[in-house]
């Protein structure tokens, strides 16, 4: 016990029982502690990385993937660079195209012609018609005349030029499509023809709907959150059930209920007409349109606004208001000048949370949105399931995800991810 006594030379290092320096021993046990903690989280984290993050990365890969044309038309694309791009290609290009189209699998031809149709309208029908006529061709060649005779579009330079856009194995084309733009034959970005422009409008509408829903939620949630925060706990817990109940109920149930209530001959309109408030022909159009989307989304997202507001308001001591009134402020003035500023973190958290959830919505606008209440999520679903334009669906998905990640970063700055609570 001679080395470690207090008051003796401070330069003599402390040691543990087995002789290692204390500092080292502490560091080692800290490393072990960290490794253990990390080891615990590693399993679930790995699960998410493999099954969640990796698919998101492949989604991004799909949004830029353009290997299909190169894979299905290898001979044509191999010599494509040698073409001058101005006059009609020579015989060997036609021969290569013939060889490619006749040797490819039927399923692949369908896919590649669909893809080529995105670049230039008309490829799909051209390939389909040609494939039928190819069966009667003289297989020795020459092919140029035969092909142009089979369908005069083969003699149209613009079709051959459009292949240039699909030459690269990666493309930003889908992202441009998602913004109503496309490539022309020299790979410049141009706007789509006017009767094809929809996506910018969808992005705008998505933002607009989300903003309206957020504002409606804020206006409706504020008084309720205030009530819940200022009531004695016994009553507020009871009322909280009313807030949490819709949160826990299936979305489809709530949507069906709103459909019944708001349709032209639904509960609301029928009651108003029966009471004589509305004439029979002036029923309120509240369902299967923009209004329907707003109303239903507001009701669905209201708890997301109430809960953050409530948790912030509960932490505001009532003494501030009393002090302000003591100093002469009217209750209204005290509320606006003293209370509301203190709720701003809650407002910020609720607004961003509702907005983030709202822009990604799909089910609600699909069922109640009708013609003018659809959002970008519906377009993603359409391209995923029906038109099978997976490139475009992925591109829109990645754009939406990026927007949300940016907003989430802002949310984190205001609230902090660690502070998320659930009721």
């Amino acid at each position, binding site marked *: 016990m001679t080395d470690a006594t207090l008051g003796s030379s401070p330069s003599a290092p402390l040691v543990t029982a087995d002789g290692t320096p204390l500092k080292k021993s502490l560091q080692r046990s800290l490393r072990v502690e960290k490794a253990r903690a990390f080891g615990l989280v590693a399993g679930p984290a790995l699960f998410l990385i493999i099954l969640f993050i990796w698919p998101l990365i492949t*989604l991004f890969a799909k949004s830029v993937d353009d290997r299909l044309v190169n894979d299905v038309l290898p001979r044509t694309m191999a010599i494509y660079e040698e073409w001058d791009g101005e006059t009609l290609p020579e015989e060997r290009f036609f021969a290569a195209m013939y060889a490619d189209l006749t040797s490819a699998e039927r399923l692949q031809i369908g896919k590649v012609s669909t893809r080529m149709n995105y670049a230039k309208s008309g490829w799909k029908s051209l390939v389909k018609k040609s494939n039928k006529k190819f069966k009667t061709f003289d297989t020795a060649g020459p092919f140029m005349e035969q092909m142009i005779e089979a369908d005069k579009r083969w003699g149209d330079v613009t079709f051959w030029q459009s292949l240039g856009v699909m030459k690269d194995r990666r493309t930003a084309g889908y992202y441009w499509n998602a913004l109503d733009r496309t490539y022309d034959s020299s790979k410049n970005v141009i706007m789509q023809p006017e009767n094809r422009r929809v996506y910018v409008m969808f992005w705008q509408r998505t933002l607009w709907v989300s903003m309206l829903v957020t504002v409606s939620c804020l206006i409706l949630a504020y008084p309720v959150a205030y009530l819940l925060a200022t009531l004695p706990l016994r009553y507020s817990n009871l009322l909280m059930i009313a807030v949490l109940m819709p949160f826990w109920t299936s979305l489809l149930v709530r949507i069906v209920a709103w459909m019944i209530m708001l349709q032209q001959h639904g509960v609301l309109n029928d009651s108003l007409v029966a009471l004589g408030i509305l004439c029979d022909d002036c029923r309120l159009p509240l369902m299967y349109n923009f209004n329907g989307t707003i109303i239903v989304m507001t009701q669905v997202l209201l708890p997301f606004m109430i809960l953050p507001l409530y948790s912030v308001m509960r932490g505001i001591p009532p003494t501030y208001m009393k002090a302000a009134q003591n100093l002469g402020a009217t209750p209204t003035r005290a509320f606006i000048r003293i209370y509301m500023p203190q709720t701003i973190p809650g407002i910020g958290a609720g607004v961003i949370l509702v907005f983030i959830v709202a822009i990604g919505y799909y089910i609600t606008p699909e069922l109640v949105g009708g013609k003018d209440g659809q959002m970008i999520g519906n377009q993603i679903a359409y391209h995923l399931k029906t038109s099978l334009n997976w490139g475009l669906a992925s591109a829109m998905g990645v754009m939406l995800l990026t927007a949300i990640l940016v907003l989430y970063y802002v949310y984190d700055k205001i609230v902090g991810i660690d502070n998320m609570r659930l009721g």
Partner: protein
Amino acid sequence: MALPIYATTGQKVWHYTYLTICGLVLFFLVAPLIIVIPLSFTSSPFLSFTPEMLSLDPAGFSLEWYKNMVGNCSDRVTTVCSTKWMIGFKNSIIIGIFATLLATTLGTIAALGLSRKHTPGRKALMALLISPMIVPLIITAASLALFSVTIFGVRFDLSASHLGLVLAHTILGLPFVVITVTATLVGFDESLTRASANMGAGPARTFFKVQMPLILPGVISGALFAFITSFDEIVVVIFLGGADQLTLPRQMWAGIRQEISPTILAAATILVIISIVLLTTVELLRRRSERMRGVSPA
């Protein structure tokens, strides 16, 4: 928030207006649920209150739609009758249970790791574990539906299989478990684990005998959140599930889009009842957890 005795008339009016507004908003929140229940007992195949129902005439009510749900079909030729509702219910329960078990296990382990004092990269790991909640469901569904790996020529993907759906729902339920269990662990008294270690128990024994009983309410809470997430989930099922993965929400979705009949409302009522039961359980557990940790409602 009682009205002080010295309140002026103006203040009184404003106070009652304010209470009315709050009442209306709360009504707005629960109205859909209240409508669904009585309408599920209608005797007409259309989704509106018939005059018989409004006058409380017993002829306006029937259990026809509930019978449809269990396959006891009515004679209306135009509706395709089947046992799909029961199949959907069974599938939802099975997938829900497995997804919940997996999510709860993984989530609790992750929460334990995150709550320790010296976890490296806690913020990043927390963000990772919560991320499925942030990403819109349509994007998650799209990425999982398009995802496939080919190992040694064999193609693995998550589509059209029960296992795939269970894994997908696990991903969706995991954040809820992590959040609830971390919240429960926040007030956890570390000295209990140290005392247990002091008396010779290994880490596993400490966990099961000391920690688990105390955080159990939080764990069950998270498990119920995960279950209800899986049970009500529709978007991922639409894109990932095949014909065999018929869950209750999927059947409801088909019903709403194709053959709208009050059978949907019967299913909806049952879902509402399940939700109420689960919500009450969670609430009771929360109070119990608070009592056990000595945090009394102020």
